């Protein structure tokens, strides 16, 4: 069964302001992501303009990368057990 990709949503609250990251959602493609963003994140007139971008297409620095000591650890999700899909019937993992 397929899951829709994750999108990040940015809203311009009113004219003259920057777009600000407000949250995420799932959508099958860019157009649906925009519609979903309108439905999910502007229910109370919070925005005049919406940007959506696939989460996997964002290039990010590690928060602590100015400090080389912590740089190597920042984005290695594979170090975390939750990164791995283990079938439910395998015990004690």
């Amino acid at each position, binding site marked *: 069964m397929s899951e829709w990709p994750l999108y990040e949503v940015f809203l311009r609250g009113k004219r003259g302001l920057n777009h600000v990251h407000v949250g995420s959602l799932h959508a099958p493609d860019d157009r649906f992501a925009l519609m979903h963003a309108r439905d999910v994140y502007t229910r109370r*007139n919070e925005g005049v303009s919406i940007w959506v971008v696939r989460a996997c297409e964002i290039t990010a620095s590690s928060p602590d990368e100015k400090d080389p000591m912590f740089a190597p650890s920042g984005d290695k999700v594979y170090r975390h057990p939750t990164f791995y899909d283990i079938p439910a019937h395998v015990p004690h993992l």
Partner: protein
Amino acid sequence: MISDDLLGNDAHWAFGTDFEDPLAGVDTTVPDGVDPASLARYCLMLGDDALVLSQRLSEWCSRAPDLEEDIALANVALDLLGQARLLLARAAAADPSVVPALPDDSPVPAEDALAFFRSPAEFRNVTMAELPNGDFAEAITRLLLLSTCRLAEFESMAAHPDAVLAAVAAKGRKELAYHRDFAARWFVTLARGTAESRRRVLDALDGLWAFWPELDAPAGVEVVLDQVFAAADVSRPEVAPARGLGRECVHTEALTDLLAEMQSVARAHPRGLW
């Protein structure tokens, strides 16, 4: 209880200031040259379509294919409910004789008297709005057909001599344009998605098309619809029209059931305050 410094002071409220009475502060005098009875009748047609379709759409709440769609369908239902309130209130103000009689001390406002205390044989919605819910393809197809028609109706209504109705149309047009685009996008997606989704959307269209003539689509609607069908690689079904007489207050049992449920609490407490 929630401090302003933590949450900021920009609380957005879900509703405008006129939420209590949808026509608060509006001059509801019927203009010269407009027959109040036929104005009320027209408002009831459009108001009942919105109310009944909104009720069907809200049945999707907590049952949609994903959270995003749950929220989207609720938005459409809320828009239509807002339109229904304005139109029912307008009908009552234009011709008070359409409002069912309630005890003198009843606190029930006119819009609610119309929604909760009329019998099925007094509703003027089209049959397509009242049909029981099917699957998501059925919901999308029904929304596509009804919102395309309704948008065209509202576009011409924006020039209505009654200023109230013109204002309702101006507000509703934007909402309906979104409903149509949402439905059209999903219609094309399902028609061209998987074999299963295509089969389901074609079944839905076949089932609903019999009730299309009853909508008496304004000019131009079929052109829009044909564009959507072309994008979806779908042709108009060849189905014999059903005998839809919703505008004449003739309904299926589905409306009786829908209203029995919708009206149950209000009718159990005719003097209740809510």
